[in-house]
């Protein structure tokens, strides 16, 4: 009896659904009909690291994305072009604890169980790597804020979009030019053995070799390295003018500390993260340990006053950082930037299908200008629009702190370079 009732109910629901579908398809071109079948909300799924090595970087990225979501929801949601209306955004996020194996399970869960409309990866290449294959397998577009490993972007995979930074292999182009410009001929490169750092090291080595400079040291070290004293001594014995250390913040901090206590001095010291996580680095190594260190330059230190979408740098600092630039780091901007790219995808896609979203992103390439710079991707989804200038941490406030100055190229520079470092 109960079975019979249930079958009747199913048939009735199926009939209703078919009727609704028929109405929907007949009136697809009208706004009113489109609105009728619009989802109650757009679900955005992402992961973050609540603990572990990447927590420091992952959490600001999530904060930037959340900021964009709350900002859009305050307006009634993101504008979805396919339905000609704003639809509220809902965030589903899981804590991967900086573990790529946990992340792999959770990315799968976001796609298969939560059935998210938009998939956003966690910070960095290590935690993005598992998402790349999973997203491709399920034919879901991966919005990738900071996973810049060059191996992610291949001609066969159209299901990834790097929203913020260029691929890490492109990062050092201005750095190589700077080294040539300063006529530095003895360069030591020590890099962590992971995709992110190895691709930067390769670019630098190839660029320098083209310029006739052979690095005096070119060594990989394990990503888990936290003691650099002996490595610094080994490098110092080769008398380089420039020492480039390519690692994550957990490497940059002990490296700069060990360098300070070693008593060794190099005309130029470069590490990747002081430009991104300046406050963290300064609180750990102090003003003396950070002064005159070179790094990449990132927003918000690179200020954008003309944007086609979203907030200008000044407005973002005001709204997100409560008016204090020191409250904002690049990863906050990267999370917010991912939101802006998603916003464009939703606004221009003909439907919420993944292929339509990907096509919409491609259509906005070269047209979108935000506080993060120009959004310009190639057919593989790799970001090409941004170039990271060279920055230098310069003593400020009577040498009690440091500030980030952009020193190269001249078109982006806002202060003079100090080379060799005193």
């Amino acid at each position: 009896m109960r079975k019979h009732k249930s079958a009747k109910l199913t048939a009735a629901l199926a009939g209703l659904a078919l009727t609704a579908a028929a109405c929907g398809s007949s009136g697809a071109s009208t706004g009113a009909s489109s609105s009728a079948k619009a989802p109650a909300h757009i679900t955005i799924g992402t992961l973050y690291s609540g603990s572990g090595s990447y927590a420091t970087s992952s959490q600001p990225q999530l904060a930037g994305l959340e900021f964009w979501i709350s900002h859009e929801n305050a307006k009634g949601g993101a504008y979805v072009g396919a339905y000609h209306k704003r639809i509220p955004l809902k965030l589903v996020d899981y804590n991967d604890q900086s573990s790529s194996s946990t992340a792999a399970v959770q990315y799968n869960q976001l796609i298969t169980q939560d059935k998210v409309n938009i998939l956003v990866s966690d910070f960095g290449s290590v935690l993005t790597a598992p998402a790349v294959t999973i997203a491709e397998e399920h034919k879901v577009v991966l919005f990738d804020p900071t996973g810049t490993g060059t191996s992610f972007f291949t001609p066969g995979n159209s299901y990834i979009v790097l929203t913020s930074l260029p691929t890490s292999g492109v990062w050092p182009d201005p750095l190589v030019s700077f080294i040539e410009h300063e006529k530095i001929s003895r360069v030591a490169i020590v890099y962590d053995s992971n995709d992110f750092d190895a691709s930067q090291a390769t670019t630098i080595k190839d660029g320098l070799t083209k310029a006739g400079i052979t690095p005096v040291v070119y060594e990989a070290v394990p990503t888990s390295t936290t003691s650099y004293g002996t490595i610094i001594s080994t490098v110092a014995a080769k008398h380089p003018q420039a020492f480039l250390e390519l690692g994550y913040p957990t490497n940059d901090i002990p490296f700069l500390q060990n360098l300070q206590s070693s008593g060794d001095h190099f005309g130029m010291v470069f590490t990747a993260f002081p430009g991104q996580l300046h406050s963290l680095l300064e609180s750990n190594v102090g003003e003396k340990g950070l002064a005159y260190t070179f790094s990449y330059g990132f927003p918000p230190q690179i200020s954008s006053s003309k944007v086609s979408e979203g907030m200008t740098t000044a407005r973002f600092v005001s709204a997100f950082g409560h008016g204090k630039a020191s409250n904002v780091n690049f990863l906050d901007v990267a999370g917010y930037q991912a939101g802006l790219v998603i916003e464009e995808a939703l606004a221009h896609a003909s439907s919420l299908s993944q292929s339509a979203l990907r096509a919409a992103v491609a259509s906005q390439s070269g047209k979108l200008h935000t506080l993060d710079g120009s959004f310009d991707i190639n057919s593989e989804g790799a970001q090409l629009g941004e170039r990271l200038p060279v920055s230098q941490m310069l003593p400020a406030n009577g040498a009690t702190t440091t500030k980030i100055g952009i020193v190269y190229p001249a078109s982006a520079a806002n202060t003079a370079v100090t080379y060799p470092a005193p």
Partner: protein
Amino acid sequence: MLFEFAVVAGILFGVYYALLGVGLNLVFGVLQVVNLAHGDVVMLGSYLAFEAYYAWHLNPLWAVVIGVVPALVAGGALYAGVGPRLARAADPEMLSLVLFFGISQIIEALATVAFGNNQRSVPASSLGAAPLRILGERYPRDWWVVAGVSAFVLAALFAYLYASPVGRATRAVMSSPRESAAVGIDVRRVSVATFGVGTFLAASAGVLGVFLLGGVNPTEGVSITVTAFAVIVLGGLGNAPGTVLGGLVFGLATELTQTYASTWSGLVPYVLLLVVMLARPKGLLSKSARVA
């Protein structure tokens, strides 16, 4: 020149690694317990140094002294609480693994809540700014200070083990708990004291590790336990003096590899461990040479 530097650095780090492992080995030798929370206690010691320097404006080395009583009491109390239950278990070693893994996770979670996720550091200059020039080479001063304090704590430990009544009783229990009980040694009391001493040794290694291990973060406990375990297996499980040899071998292997083949520096010490295990399964100071 590079070789000399690497050897001296290896010895300095080796003395520290010995301190890092000796508490774990002492606890294993006496209690037959693998304390998987050892690295987390080391991590707490590093935070104590951080607080001593930034919150109380003290030389961070004072944290070694400040940590003595809390570590002895907390370690002793913990073992007094769980020891009897472990003793009654059908498989106490397996239960201890699970139990201390749980404690490790709890410490990590509480440390994350208390201190946040960010890496924290204490400047090496707090132990003296200028590098030391020895045999024509320049060494960071903090390496020498850390190795010196580690050697002092190790010497104090061996004085305790060989010259005090409780220490002699500890060595007796390490050799044979049953025979020790038969001659009137209170094995339970010795066990509680040993766990307290082991906790203090881990905490003091943490105070010093904030300089040699690149700062502190709440999740570093597991990797520290792995390093400490490698050191004590190299020297000989349950063999406290062997830990010193294990630490020196581990330190030299790490620093020499960093100098001549830095790409493999994360691998070589563990390959060495494997080789030692195959050649001398009971560690470098095997049972025939064992001195409890």
